[in-house]
């Protein structure tokens, strides 16, 4: 292992480590533009030049591997002078328009120009201008600001899996462009904004909204899919202005999906900000007391059921469960999509391999799922793994557009049965694989024979040695952020359909159930933050808080509990959800035993120990689950048709509506003619 000296400090590194990485280990920061630790290294910006003893010229530290005995100076006069020169060249064609640039205040070029730039320009010739590109409704371009670092091109190729951006022309005329003119059609395109070190690629919906130094930052968790991406919420006053990714190598690395990033405007529209009670068939504004009284009066003596929606947090789920139990309810459900599977064994409903674990897989079988639309970052991991090792990926389900090559094996359960009998080419692939995995999606479970399919998938996993010491390749891919948490808290009682028979129904943000199936005479309580489908049916509405407005726990699809933090207050009369339930319980004479958030969390841990270790996945014990039986022949149907609209928040978002129009409605690959 090479041992070298950087700025007088000794360090030993893995062979193949570059100087820039070694310096990072020592906490020495070397300026850079083109280097990005998740992308390949082109070494084309030259900002990272350092002095290396016995080397005649300064060296690009991002591309130079460490060698034994190297003596590197990152702050010497030579390094400084080299960087000054690079900076001057970079600024030759840069418009220096920081006052009207959204990147200002968080721009690498701006920061590094302060450190290495000249205080005036010696360039008296004409600057060049580059035509802006049309990349669709999310990414705004000001291409004259581009410094040709090619990070965006590499991101498209290596992470997003869309080869749409490229380096066009050469020399003075070199620019970043698309093939003719084309939109960025990736569900990860928003990350281009973060990847671009300057203001060439910025957020279109967020354009000219705020300066970074005006924002209050809150570290939180995304809930618009079940991945639980780590995010940073930037707010000003009472308004959430934007959402950025936060690094978590185990979950989302440093990316987030476009839905996570751009649905924020949905938090402002269609909000429920005060309680409502239905009088003579019409919903009318009410006080909390009136709303609670109406509930107390109307549920008396009734058979009550409760459904947990996709965005519900664990604190409110446990509060709802405790209250329902106190009321003697036998109808609890968290699977709005009526997916049928065995909920008694965690190993049967978790993503056991873990997201980071995907990278160790060498063969993947996707069953009834399109990870690209259901969990974009799980998909990014699969692609990453494919890119690194060209692993084999098989699909059972409908044909779909994935950004890695797959082998389509069949459409329904019988293909899975064949596989169990060792038939087909993919059986060979699986039996030869060292770490095979299976991913079972809602498309395979949202049907009457879901239990049997789950059992079938388990047997396939067992047959191909997918589960053994140190490796568990059985995975279920959930779509809802609340799902695993609710399952862990045992929020299932009765069968998925029985709620249609109760005569009082408590909906905790449940909007995706078939509303028309609710008994016409049933008394419906809706607690949630958006006036979406279910609120219109409700008899009483209790305004709750969205995920940016509460301190709450969510468990992601791996079974990893994570904490979302409050960035802003809920609007007007709306309140944090568990508190609403706590207050209601008192009016109903079934007072819940907790008064503070800490006490609720204690209750969570008592219900399931996994809540005791925030951020950690506890491997589930492998047991038998599912119910063997006959499977129907019908093909699997995917649960998500429109990636951009899956829940009340995204349905209320204008940006998501624009994306739907641009990417889903019109044929995806259609190029937009421009100029």
């Amino acid at each position, binding site marked *: 292992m090479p041992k070298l000296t950087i700025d007088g400090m000794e360090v030993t590194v893995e062979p193949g480590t570059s100087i820039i990485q070694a310096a990072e280990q020592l906490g020495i920061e070397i300026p850079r533009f083109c280097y990005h630790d998740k992308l390949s290294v082109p070494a084309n910006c030259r900002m990272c030049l350092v002095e290396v003893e016995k080397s005649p010229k300064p060296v690009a530290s991002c591309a130079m591997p460490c060698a034994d005995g190297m003596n590197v100076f990152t702050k010497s006069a030579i390094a400084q002078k080299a960087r000054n020169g690079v900076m001057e060249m970079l600024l030759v064609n840069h418009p220096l328009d920081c006052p009207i640039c959204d990147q200002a205040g968080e721009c690498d070029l701006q920061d590094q120009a302060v450190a290495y730039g000249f205080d005036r320009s010696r360039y008296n010739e004409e600057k060049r201008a580059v035509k802006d590109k049309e990349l669709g409704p999310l990414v705004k371009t000001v291409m004259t600001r581009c410094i040709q670092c090619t990070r965006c091109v590499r991101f498209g190729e290596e992470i997003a899996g869309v*080869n*749409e*951006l*490229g*380096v*066009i*022309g*050469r*020399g003075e005329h070199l620019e970043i462009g*698309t*093939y*003719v003119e084309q939109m960025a059609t990736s569900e990860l395109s928003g990350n281009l904004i973060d990847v671009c070190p300057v203001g060439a690629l910025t957020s279109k919906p967020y354009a000219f909204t705020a300066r970074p130094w005006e924002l209050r930052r809150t570290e939180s968790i995304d809930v618009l899919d079940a991945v639980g991406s780590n995010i940073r919420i930037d707010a000003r006053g009472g308004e959430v202005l934007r959402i950025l990714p936060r690094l978590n190598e185990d979950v989302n690395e440093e990316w987030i999906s476009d839905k996570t990033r751009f649905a924020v405007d949905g938090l402002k529209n269609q909000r429920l900000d005060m309680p409502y009670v239905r009088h003579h068939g019409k919903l009318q504004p009410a006080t909390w007391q009136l709303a609670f009284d109406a509930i107390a009066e109307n549920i008396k003596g009734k058979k009550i059921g409760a459904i947990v929606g996709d965005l519900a947090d664990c604190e409110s789920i446990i509060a709802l469960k405790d209250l329902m139990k106190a009321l003697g309810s036998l109808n609890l459900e968290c699977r709005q999509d009526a997916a049928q599977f065995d909920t008694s064994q965690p190993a049967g409903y978790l993503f056991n391999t873990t997201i980071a674990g995907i990278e160790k897989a060498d063969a993947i079988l996707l069953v009834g799922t399109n990870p690209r639309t259901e969990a974009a970052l799980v998909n990014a991991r699969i692609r990453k793994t494919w890119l690194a090792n060209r692993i084999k990926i098989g699909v059972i389900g409908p044909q779909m557009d994935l950004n890695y090559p797959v082998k389509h094996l069949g459409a329904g359960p019988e293909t899975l049965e064949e596989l169990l009998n060792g038939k087909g080419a993919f059986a060979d692939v699986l039996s030869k694989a060292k770490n095979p995995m299976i991913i079972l999606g809602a498309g395979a479970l949202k049907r009457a024979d879901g239990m049997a399919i789950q059992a079938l998938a388990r047997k396939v996993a067992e047959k191909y040695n997918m589960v053994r010491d140190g490796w568990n390749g059985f995975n279920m891919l959930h779509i809802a952020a609340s799902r695993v948490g609710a399952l862990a808290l045992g929020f299932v009682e009765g069968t998925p359909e029985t709620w249609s028979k109760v005569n009082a129904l408590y909906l905790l943000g449940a909007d995706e159930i078939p509303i028309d199936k609710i008994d016409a005479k049933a008394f419906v309580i809706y607690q949630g933050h958006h006036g979406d489908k279910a609120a219109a049916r409700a008899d009483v509405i209790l305004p709750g808080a969205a995920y940016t407005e509460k301190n709450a726990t969510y468990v992601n699809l791996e079974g990893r509990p994570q904490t979302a933090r409050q960035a802003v207050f809920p609007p007007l009369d709306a309140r944090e959800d568990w508190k609403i339930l706590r207050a209601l319980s008192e009016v109903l004479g079934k007072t819940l035993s907790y008064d503070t958030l800490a006490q609720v969390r204690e209750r969570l841990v008592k219900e399931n120990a996994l809540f005791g270790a925030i951020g950690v996945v506890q491997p589930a014990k492998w047991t038998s689950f599912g119910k063997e039986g006959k499977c129907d022949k019908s093909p699997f149907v995917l649960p998500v048709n429109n990636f951009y609209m899956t829940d009340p928040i995204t349905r209320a978002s204008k940006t998501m509506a624009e994306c739907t129009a641009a990417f889903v409605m019109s044929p995806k690959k259609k190029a937009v003619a421009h100029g």
Partner: protein
Amino acid sequence: MKKAEAHIAKYPKGKQASAVMPLLDLAQTQHDGWIPEAAMEEIGRILDMPRIKVFEVATFYTMYNLQPKGEHHLQLCTTTPCWLSGSAEVVKACEKHLGIKMGETTADGLFSMSDVECLGACVNAPVIQHNGDDLYEDLTPKNVIEVLDGLKSGKKPKHGSQTGRTTSMGVKGATCLHELAEKAGVKKC
């Protein structure tokens, strides 16, 4: 397609994308001296590479024309040695004489101008390449007009140096080596 396959066969399997340059060239010669978008798309398909990658290559090399060019395609070198020897004035003279700007084609379709990087003939700078082939060298704002008029009249002027130099012999004729040779006792030829 046969020719294309012959090119592809030169590269190891899986590295077929390497054939992109000969294929672009093939498309250009087969298509009136320029490469239409459809051809690039087709090349991308044949070589199984994203079309943007084909586009990148095609736009990098000035030898690939992505638009139809006039009968006489003038490729004017503007790289440093040519520029130091006055290429800017030559460009200006051409633009004035033909009434078009760099990158344009005359209305009668006779002349196109494009700027290119070093043509490897810097010793006789400034230099213009005609239809991707012959070089006119040692140009001045004056003699370049003669070249243009010659081309226009249909009589192709002699290529090479326009100041009468033999290849890249020094401007004063063959000198130093001569004297040296004499000194060394070589007989005058």
